């Protein structure tokens, strides 16, 4: 397997409580990996270690390594903003910045000074809004406030904003849980289209979504990885009793 993210001996503690226990997994490149498991099992915590968002929560401790392209992102000399540029995040609730649609897409590119002039920015905004499937709906009102969009549109805008800084990895923390079914489907089909170019890691608590999206599956329970493998293997022939119980809806 061509691993894009490698997790080695990862332990995470919230003050005294251990949230992740000795995690060792690999996330395959240019596929959709779905992390699933019952609530409180540590899926979101694991996801947050991939873009170093965990340290935004006070009182957390982490041991072990998370390697992205072979580089441990917790090394002392690693610039956290570079990590987050490479590892993008689609949050649970759409969070448009309080500015126009256009400025939302430009935001990250501007921060990293990725384009030379207005023309380049304009072209990039169009490009990423098209990728996110939002261009047709908003191209006539790019300078309206982003909050004027519907929730589903806002989430696609957030996707465009994240893609605009040219990440290699997209993390999704239950990215459709706040959306209606049609908007969810829209986001799902975007993610499937994008997986040729991006490594995608999605946390979800809906089994059906996991089955629709996953190429690779990680099943977690109480802070431990119980089973990890290709979607076909795990869904059809789970090796572990716990996974089987979860897939059959017993947990």
């Amino acid at each position, binding site marked *: 397997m061509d691993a894009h993210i490698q997790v080695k001996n990862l332990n995470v503690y919230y003050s005294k409580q251990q949230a992740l226990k000795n995690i060792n997994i690999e996330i395959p490149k240019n596929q959709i990996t779905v992390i699933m498991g019952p609530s409180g099992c540590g899926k979101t915590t694991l996801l947050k270690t991939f873009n170093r968002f965990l340290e935004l929560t006070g009182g957390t401790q982490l041991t072990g390594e998370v390697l992205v392209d072979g580089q441990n992102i917790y090394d002392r000399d690693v610039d956290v903003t570079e990590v987050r540029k490479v590892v993008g995040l689609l*949050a649970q609730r759409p969070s448009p910045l*309080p500015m126009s649609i256009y400025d939302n897409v430009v935001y990250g590119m501007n921060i990293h000074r990725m384009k030379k002039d207005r023309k380049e920015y304009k072209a990039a905004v169009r490009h990423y809004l098209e990728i996110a499937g939002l261009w047709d709906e908003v191209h006539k009102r790019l300078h309206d406030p982003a909050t004027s969009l519907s929730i589903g549109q806002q989430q696609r805008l*957030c996707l465009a904003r994240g893609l605009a800084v040219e990440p290699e990895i997209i993390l999704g923390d239950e990215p459709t849980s706040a959306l209606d079914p049609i908007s969810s489907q829209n986001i799902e089909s975007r993610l499937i289209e994008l997986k040729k170019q991006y490594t995608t890691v999605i946390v979800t608590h809906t089994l059906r979504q996991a089955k629709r999206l996953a190429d690779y599956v990680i099943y977690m329970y109480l802070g431990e990885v119980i089973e990890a493998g290709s979607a076909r293997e795990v869904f059809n022939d789970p090796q572990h009793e716990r996974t089987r119980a979860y897939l059959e809806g017993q947990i």
Partner: protein
Amino acid sequence: MTQQNQSVNYETITKPEGRHARPSGAAHRRRLDQNVRRTFLVVTLLPILLISIVTISLIVRSWPILSAYPLKDLFLGTIWRPDKGLFGFYPYIVATFWVTAVGVLLATPPCILVSIYLSEYAHLLTRTIAKPILDLLAAIPPVVYGVWGLVAIVPFVDKVLAPFSERWLSSVSIFKVNQPTGFGILAAGIVLAVMIAPLIISVMYEIFSTVPNDLRHASLAVGATQWQTIRTVVLPQVAPGIIAALVLGASRALGETIAVLIVVGNVPKVPTSIFDAAYPLPALIANNYGDMMSIPLYDSALLSAALVLLIVILIFNILSMLVIQRMLRRKWAS
């Protein structure tokens, strides 16, 4: 929901044939409950009543002078000679404005920086230690600040700031040193800045906490630094609240009396430089009310000064509170 439950309970209690009826104590308990509620209501309304009474009695008591002189002569007149019937408030009004402006201007940059640090950067531990200490600053009695100003700030202005200004800034008229004592607007402004800082910081801190973390995270997630996030996302959101906090601080500064009158020099002349001595309205009232009351209209003049002060402070307070309350409500709503 709870309202409904309560009313259902009342019914079962008052109905004598109800299954849960307690005929002996129930009616009495209900009456007592109502009386307690009414008492609390009256006590809560008392402050509103007090403000109204104070305002109305100030208007009544200052009416004699307000009707005897045109407002222009009172508020733009520059000569204060009550014994000759001249009541010009202008020097006092200008002094009040200067002292307040210098105080707020000096307090603004450190207050913004401290509140940004506490709300955005500081660890939980730093925050839990620093906040109470800041609140303690607000608990120091004004007279102590005044004495501190007298023994520390006045000499500092006299020995350090005035010579510095004379050397480098003497061409700018508002920095000109016309009287070399150290007492004056700058000393009062410095003391005021320190006095109002805790209030401003604690309001600003609250305002910063109204920005949802989702927004900060959205910015950090694309690789923005914390400062970029603060500058481009947080500050634009809190700008109205920051201004409101400063206006609230200004209203506190406007009314501050004892600490100011100890260091401001109390010279009833229209100031032209921050090194000039001046005589703000609260100091005028505090120094003179009760003396020389035999002079006609003197008492009324001082109370009209108090009225002006009260109205300005009330307006400042109400405006800033409206903005702050609105922002806090937004936080609770989200």
